[in-house]
């Protein structure tokens, strides 16, 4: 693993305890969601057993007052860490609404994405937009300082010189985009890395290399074996971290964010994780690997690892760990109740959100549907 620089401080006891609570909450909710699928409460789910530290750690490093996160379909831990309402999040797995019922703008989490690699380019566009906005602000501030612009003059940004000093003092807002080793084969991901590097966009590409893309192992998916190695080809900094170690993930993401915020461009983090269990609740991992292999290859359990670190450092005792576990179980039960209470969305919503400005055709189709169906 590439070590994180010593400029990123070690985590405080308080941060470690908060991380443990989050990891435990994610672990329990994830296990619960698999059980709900078996019980018929939700039709399907994409588990993340073993990826909790990668998701919680990366999201923990984000500043949700200004950053924006672009997830895949497997980022429940990220969503939970950001404080997204878990019932609204689970609505996607409950088949209530594609992309989730939560508001992506206020939660800073883009809709759940089913297209592998689909949202990676959005992160670049969004991040480039932050750079442009910062430059426009700076230009405007300059202009007001010198001569006030004529009334009604549009705020136009001056051309970028591409230099890192384009970032404001507080740093640029950054985009964090998630994808897997499988997604790294998609053309969009390569286009995104190239665009981001050329434009010096403040993006952190966060690869969860969980060893598998459904049944295909990384060695058959990623030529050269490491996604991080590709960053060099794009002139981009990269970090490889132990994705089972949440403190390493937080510090790596903080380092990457500092780089991106300063206007130095994108960073790629490859978090080495292992997807324990199935790819989704309809997958059968027994067809492509044995349980023995899983036990051998998975590495340290992220939740157990942090528990050990907490106990060894004296930042927490076993009472704290037990309380976190009990709270996590209770929280998962609350989410289950909420998910069970979810009803199908009113059918009229099907027509409502197609366009911001709807069409006569859609209005006609909606009223025909209303007349000819029993729903309202």
């Amino acid at each position, binding site marked *: 693993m590439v070590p994180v620089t010593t400029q990123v401080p070690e985590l405080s006891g308080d941060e470690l305890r908060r991380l443990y609570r989050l990891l435990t909450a994610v672990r329990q909710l994830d296990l619960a969601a698999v059980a709900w699928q078996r019980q018929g409460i939700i039709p399907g789910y994409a588990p993340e057993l073993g990826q909790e530290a990668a998701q919680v750690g990366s999201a923990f490093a984000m500043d949700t007052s200004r950053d924006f996160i672009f997830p895949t379909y497997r980022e429940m831990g990220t969503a939970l860490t950001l404080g997204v309402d878990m019932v609204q999040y689970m609505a996607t797995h409950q088949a209530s609404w594609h992309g989730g019922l939560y508001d992506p703008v206020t939660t800073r989490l883009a*809709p759940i994405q089913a297209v592998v690699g689909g949202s990676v380019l959005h992160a670049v566009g969004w991040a480039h937009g932050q750079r442009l*906005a910062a430059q426009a602000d700076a230009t405007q501030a300059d202009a007001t300082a010198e001569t006030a612009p004529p009334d009604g003059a549009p705020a136009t940004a001056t051309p970028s010189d591409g230099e890192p000093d384009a970032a404001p003092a507080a740093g640029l807002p950054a985009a964090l985009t998630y994808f897997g080793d499988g997604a790294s084969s998609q053309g969009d991901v390569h286009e995104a890395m190239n*665009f981001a590097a050329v434009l010096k966009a403040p993006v952190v590409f966060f690869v969860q290399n969980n060893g598998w893309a459904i049944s295909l192992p990384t060695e058959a998916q990623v030529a050269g074996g490491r996604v991080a190695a590709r960053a060099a080809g794009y002139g981009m900094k990269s970090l490889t971290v132990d994705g089972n170690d949440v403190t390493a993930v937080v510090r790596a993401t903080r380092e990457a964010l500092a780089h991106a915020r300063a206007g130095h461009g994108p960073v790629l983090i490859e978090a080495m994780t292992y997807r324990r269990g199935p790819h989704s609740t309809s997958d059968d991992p027994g067809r492509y690997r044995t349980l023995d292999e899983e036990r051998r290859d998975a590495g340290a359990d992220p939740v157990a690892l942090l528990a050990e670190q907490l106990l060894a450092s004296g930042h927490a005792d076993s009472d704290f760990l037990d309380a976190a576990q009990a709270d996590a179980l209770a929280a998962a039960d609350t989410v289950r109740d909420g998910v069970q209470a979810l009803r199908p969305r009113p059918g009229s919503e099907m027509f409502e959100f197609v366009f*911001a400005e709807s069409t006569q055709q859609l209005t006609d189709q909606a009223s025909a549907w209303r007349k000819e169906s029993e729903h309202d």
Partner: protein
Amino acid sequence: MQAALIRALTEIMEQNPRALILGEDVGRLGGVFRITDGLQQRFGADRVLDTPLAESGILGMSVGLAMAGFHPIPEVQFDGFAYPAVNQIVTQLARMNYRSRGTLPMPVTLRVPSFGGIRAPEHHGESLEALFAHVPGLKVVSPSNPHEAYHLLKYAAARPDPVIFMEPKSRYWQKGEVLPADGGSPLGSKVVRSGKHVTLIAWGAMVARCLQVAELAAEDGIEVEVLDLRWLKPIDAAGLAASVARTRRAVVVHEAPLTSGLGAEVAALVTERCFGTLRAPVERVTGFDVPYPSGDLEDEYIPNIDRILFGIQRVLEYRRG
């Protein structure tokens, strides 16, 4: 038309500080068709961005820019190169408003130099309107002359939804006046020539050809009405029906292949609304179900005056039974 489009883009950029142009060679070069000529000098390299050569990248980035509150106006250099961007257009651009329950609208106007007629190599001339019109969440429009180009582009770029703006590249060098907006519905179709015997329905470059046909037909005493459909999604079904209700006969003309083309949609709409008054089935005069041919065969493929006249003859001579 080129000048009208430049003027429209200039005004859009002046009036909307969040409007951004991005694409391959749109900046220093001013675009391969020079539709963004001079805009980078005027608005800077940040607002008229030369991107790397990757269409999916351009469209995916536009989605992200829209999420950040900008109004991107991406250009795809030639219609045939929109295919690499289709994933981002269809699975992302068209759906983000829906997926996000209206919280992430996509005010993105994608300019696509479209259709054939310039004897270009493969993929430099295609007719993708049916592909895009079929996708929920997209709107599609095509101007037929400089006046329409100016007004439709300005209107499209002010919309909160994704619009595919199909510029008929064979008409780029056509001269013509840009008049003030005529006050009609900006989403409507337009009768560009009145007649009582048959309605020719067309869009883009085919409108001018249909007007020529109407001139010739007039010499034989056939009064042809020409309807510029303008919007290919949503189609102005009422305007379409109003014209055909008057003439009782319709021929739809397009460059795209016949099968599952937009002509089928037009014919269905006309049939639904004018079945009782129609004197003949709606005729289609279109390209063939072949890949858009090379320059030498283009004239055989694109509906020409004779083929359109034959179409008119068929609806005029149609006898029931």
